[in-house]
């Protein structure tokens, strides 16, 4: 009988941890185990992204569920020696709670993980994504088998409809309804498509699923394919995700080998094959109709709707496009039922959502939480609060299509219906936390720069309108803002939203609108006082030291690259404005809040008035 390993070490092989050196860590472990002759007893698996990216490279020891973080190749020897051989987990390498600094050895007791519920990410960190056997061992393809062999298309659709699953790509359209509309259209050819373009800057929810659990996507597509009567499937993956492409390709080949893709799957009479199509670097190709044009080999430009893609989609045939995370949610719904899916979340937003938590937060990483969880819980309990003890300012949801939510709305539950009331959107799951060091006008400008760059150029309001908005914002951040600009931005934004052809143009003004709504004072201080209070817009800030609170510790002077700060020890320091390049290092370093920002013209002398003509004559 084959000897089963007594310990399994799951090393995170997500892109973040690999960048942090997890492959070298793996090598070190393998070497050490070989030396000690333990290769049969101890199994090392490279899994997909664990999610706690701030603490990588990560390794988890099963069956104890011990969590090790920030691993280096040298740590391999110690862990093998102390933990695997002597049975004593190594405390030094465990997660430390931030305040009292005591170790939390078990992963699911760490706050970052405690509040999460894994459904789309159900196999996170537990499987080798390049082994279909691992996926099957965790109930993989059981839902597809049930759907293909025991359910009719109508029954599948009913289950998904009743679950209330909404598209996880950002629009939140009821998935079951989309499938139902397409299933009713008669056509010899129908397509099931997966949107793996994930263009939002900083978002990596879909990447983690495609890299870490590619079969979950395939299984979701098979079930959807049967429901709508699809004859062929495509997964559109952005070319900037080569590992995702590779893992999906391996998964497809393995599925074909096992008869889970191709002709007459599992003897059910339903046939489906899936192909990968790579994007070519255009954000707009994540838009449904532009994506379809891209697969057709055409320039990726959206089409007006109606007619909708469920009627006229890829090659003008009925097509359903769903997001990666949406597909990943489908198999458990089939296996456990609509009611089970609804046991979490709210009436209108059931289930869970994956978020990429980034920005000025302590616990940066990938999380999955039940819908309805308050924002505050995500930011403070899961996220561990603001980095370096700074003050929370806003959280941006939904990337360049989304909006900023200020402090006073942090109790808003994260649901489609509640978030949209604030002016933002849940979006695809990107969540960027901002502190007082962020300038909200700059943030809006950043997102608008992105959308203007990515605009396909087909329709006038987006092509020219977003550029005009960007020009106004640029003027505001560079000191050329004038009275009326805010009103113009708001008015123009409304028309761009109303007239744009696709979601890119229709949502590009959102970051601007929400930052105006909640941080209008920042716009006003940029325009009227020529003052960027966060000190980000370099032409609109003067850094100075408040002598009444300065302790003369000299920390600021030490970090100043221009040696512009002078002062005696323990005496108030001052900044030479002629040397200051506004790099903001002193402002970020000062622990006493003595370095302050002031308006651009704070120290400008009054210009002598032009002499009157009469005076000159005299």
């Amino acid at each position: 009988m084959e000897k089963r390993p007594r310990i399994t070490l799951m090393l995170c092989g997500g892109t973040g941890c690999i960048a942090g050196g997890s492959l070298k860590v793996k090598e070190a472990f393998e070497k050490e185990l070989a030396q000690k002759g333990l290769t049969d007893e101890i199994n090392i698996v490279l899994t997909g992204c664990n999610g706690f990216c701030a603490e990588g490279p990560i390794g988890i020891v099963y069956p104890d569920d011990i969590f090790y973080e920030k691993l280096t190749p040298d740590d391999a020897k110690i862990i093998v020696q102390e933990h695997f051989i002597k049975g004593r987990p190594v405390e030094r390498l465990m997660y430390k709670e931030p305040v009292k600094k005591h170790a939390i050895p078990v992963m699911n007791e760490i706050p970052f993980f405690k509040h999460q519920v894994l459904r789309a990410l159900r196999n996170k960190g537990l499987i080798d994504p390049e082994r279909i056997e691992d996926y099957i061992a965790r109930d993989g393809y059981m839902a597809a088998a049930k759907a293909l062999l025991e359910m009719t298309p109508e029954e599948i659709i009913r289950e998904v409809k009743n679950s209330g699953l909404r598209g996880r790509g950002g629009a939140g359209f009821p998935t079951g309804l989309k499938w139902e509309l397409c299933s009713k259209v008669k056509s010899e050819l129908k397509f099931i498509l997966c949107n793996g373009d994930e263009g939002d800057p900083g978002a990596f929810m879909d990447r983690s699923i495609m890299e870490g659990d590619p079969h979950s996507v395939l299984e979701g597509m098979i079930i959807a394919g049967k429901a709508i009567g699809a004859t062929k499937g495509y997964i559109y993956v952005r070319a900037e995700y080569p590992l995702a492409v590779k893992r999906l390709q391996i998964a497809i080949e393995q599925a074909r080998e096992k008869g889970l893709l191709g002709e007459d799957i599992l003897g059910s009479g339903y046939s489906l094959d899936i192909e990968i199509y790579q994007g070519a670097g255009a954000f707009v190709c994540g838009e449904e109709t532009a994506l379809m044009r891209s697969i057709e080999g055409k320039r990726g430009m959206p089409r007006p709707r109606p007619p909708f893609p469920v009627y006229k989609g890829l090659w003008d045939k009925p097509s359903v496009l769903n997001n990666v995370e949406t597909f990943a949610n489908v198999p458990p719904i089939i296996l456990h039922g609509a009611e089970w899916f609804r046991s979490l979340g709210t009436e209108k937003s059931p289930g869970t959502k994956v978020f990429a938590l980034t920005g000025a937060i302590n616990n940066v990483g990938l999380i999955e939480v039940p819908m309805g969880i308050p924002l505050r819980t995500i930011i403070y309990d899961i996220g561990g609060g603001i980095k370096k003890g700074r003050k929370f300012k806003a959280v941006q949801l939904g990337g360049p299509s989304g909006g900023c939510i200020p402090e006073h709305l942090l109790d808003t539950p994260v649901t489609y219906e509640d978030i949209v009331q604030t002016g933002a959107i849940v979006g695809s799951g990107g969540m960027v936390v901002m502190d007082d060091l962020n300038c909200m006008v700059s943030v809006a400008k950043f997102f608008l720069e992105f959308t203007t760059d990515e605009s396909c150029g087909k329709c006038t309001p987006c092509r020219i309108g977003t550029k005009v908005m960007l020009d106004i914002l640029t003027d505001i951040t560079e000191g050329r803002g004038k009275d009326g600009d805010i009103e113009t931005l708001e008015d123009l934004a409304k028309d761009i939203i109303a007239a744009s052809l696709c979601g890119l143009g229709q949502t590009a003004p959102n970051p601007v609108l929400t930052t105006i709504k909640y941080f209008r004072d920042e716009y006003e201080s940029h325009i009227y006082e020529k003052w960027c209070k966060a000190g980000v817009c370099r032409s609109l800030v003067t850094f100075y030291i408040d002598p009444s609170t300065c302790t003369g510790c000299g920390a600021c002077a030490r970090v100043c690259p221009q040696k512009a700060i002078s002062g005696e020890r323990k005496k108030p320091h001052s900044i030479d404005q002629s040397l200051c390049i506004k790099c903001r290092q002193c402002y970020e370093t000062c622990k006493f809040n003595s370095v302050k920002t002031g308006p651009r013209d704070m120290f400008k002398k009054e210009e002598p008035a032009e002499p009157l003509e009469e005076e000159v004559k005299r």
Partner: protein
Amino acid sequence: MINLKINGKEIQAKDGSTILKAALDNGIYIPHLCWDRRLEPYGGCRLCIVEVEGQRRLITSCAAPVEEGMVVWTETPKVVKARKTVLELLLLYHPLDCPICDKAGECELQDLAFKYGPTESRFTAKRKREPERLDSPIVERNPNRCVLCGKCVNLCRDHQGVGALAIIGRGFKAKISPAFEETLDCEFCGQCIDACPVGALGAKPYRHRSRVWYMDEYQIICPYCGCGCTTNISVREGKIIRARGKEAVGINDGNLCSKGRFGFDFLYSEKRLTTPLIRKEGELRPAPWDEALRFIAERLEIIKNTYGPSSIGAIGSQRCTVEDNFMLQRFMREVIGTDNIDSGARFGFARALEALMESSGLDYMPVDWQKPLEKSLLLVIESDITATHPVWGLNFLQAKRRGAYLITADSRQTKLARHSTHWLRLKPGTGVALLNGIANYIIENGLFDKDRVSGIKGFSEWTNHVKRFNLKETSQITGLPETTIEEVARLIASTPKRLIALSSGASENNKSKDHYIASANLLMLLGEEIDNLQLPAEFSNTLGLWLSGVRPLKDGKTLKDMLYKEGSLKALYIMGEDPVTVFPDGSTIERNLKNLELLIVQDIVLTETARLAHVVLPASAWAEKDGTFIGMTGLEQKITKLLPDQGDSTPDWKILRNLARIMGYEIGRDINSVKEDFKKKLSAEGYILEGSRWKKPQRLEPSFRIADLKVKARPEKPQEVYLLTGNVLQHSGVLSYLSKTLDSAVADAVLTINEEDAKRLNIKDDTFVKVTSPKGSVYLKTRVTDEVPEGVAFAPLHFPHARLNTLLTLPSDGEIPLEVIEISKG
């Protein structure tokens, strides 16, 4: 029909129609910039957005299908505001070029701004400074004015099937340009220019020549090919400044090709004749009309009395009007008393009609313009329809886009071949064998309705004949794989609603009479009506010339006797034709013409033939005279005198009237009486004018006929290849070379040679080579490509200076006129 309401008005629309179409059809205007009736809705300009009750967002009316009970509002405050902003944004980066922009006065952006736009802009912007592109022939581009409506790109790619322009770059930086911003090189049809709503695309000949309001616009029929397209010409102070197509105007629905759009400046060639010329002391000298006509009259009388009427002949013109040709044949038959009259249609059209008569008993069968769009399978045999009849050819492309099978049998890669669902690259001239082979396969496999067909006359004899064309033999002759022939045969047999088209002119030398007979045979076998055989007449009035009776009706001499048989004639009257440079074996023709006692040439320019004449008469050209064209569809269409006479030039029919009068005959009083006489003649022959279309009720007598492959000669020596002649898209017959504009696009008879042949013969691209046939040799410039197969070279016949016709031998009956040539270094 769907019922909906727009702005409170109840209207009905066809199921599948869009809101915009429904509105426009019912007289409700919704502004739009990027929509074109020929294209799929684009939805890019955003000007057509409307409010639809029950919908949260504004709806793109050019793309949204109508739904029962829909309630649409086009002028709500929300719509008006959004539309104003869109215009404000368009105008922001649109340069204030109106004072120097040729589009001013007919610019859609101007009109929209005037009607819907803001009067002030909230924004300022730095104007775009893209260089203006004047580096390509005919088409000028000013990217700064472009509003990115996409019409040019979409029209060129989807409608014309070329795709020379595309949107490059993204977002604000997006612009319309040829690939890699190189010089635009395309068909130069100019469809993009007419479609452009602003001054971003223009025609170089028109640049800065006139303001719109100084020109008068008229409709006239194009003088070039048999399509009979209507062009809208703009005239200023008696000169044509430009020609355009207009939506819903003409059989062409506003589509034009490069000839119709840019070929009108042949009128202004310096070579135009302005005065009669008489040969005195060996030289042609100007003379007044009465002297010239008297000269002719006297000489003709003498020759008639000395040698008899049958020593005198005439050649008519496929480009002159019905009235011109009718008068010529009246002159010959009544004044001279001879049946010796013929035309260039002898080489092509006559042959096709002969085949038609033998196969069906019909002597008249015009083309049906819309037919290709009604078919599921179009078979084109060795004919470049997209070059000979470009606008009608668009119907073939459109049919294919709608899902029809487009099967092209052609050795050369034409535009039609490139767009075909099946391109059968057969050896030149072997179309007969292919048709016989397909027919035989269908017969042997029983894929036809035997009961229906076997009773037709000649069936058993014919089936016996085609037995020889089994798959193996057919494959051997045509060079096509057996599997291909089988696949195509099965497809043709199983797809209902078929059409077979062949060009009927002689400019393409790859067909014989047997091609037409074999096509008719196949149609009959398939149970299709004979009128599914489409034989487009080549030039603007080929059909009109034929109906006028410009051909021997009794025992008169044909072109072959008149021009090629030494001593056949003593006098020849040539109207609107240039046999020396157009017809095969030009040297022989020249020799025979030189031996005439009297050669009269009546033309618009001093042609090579005219140079040999004793008398040259200056004729009025198209648009300088009234007249009638009957195009390939049998449609009778008018040309009108819109321009002043050039010098003393006179309409052809009038010259003949005056000459006849001097000789004591009245053959036609004025243009109306001539027209009336023509109509009477046709009626007497059984033709009926239905609306504007001539029809002829005839008794169908279908008959299967033997069609065989007869080739003159084959290439044998290593430096020998076939010479394939034909058309290039930018030219038509031998008239267009006079147009400087068309010349700027394509000016030379380039010899297209296959890459392998070039390698074997050690010949390089773009160099001069010597081309020799049994009849003579010429020098031509090469273009090495894979558009022609090995063993085949192609050259167009449009350019007199190339003297390509001197290489061609006069074909004998039934032979495919393919010429064998030797190519050697120049």
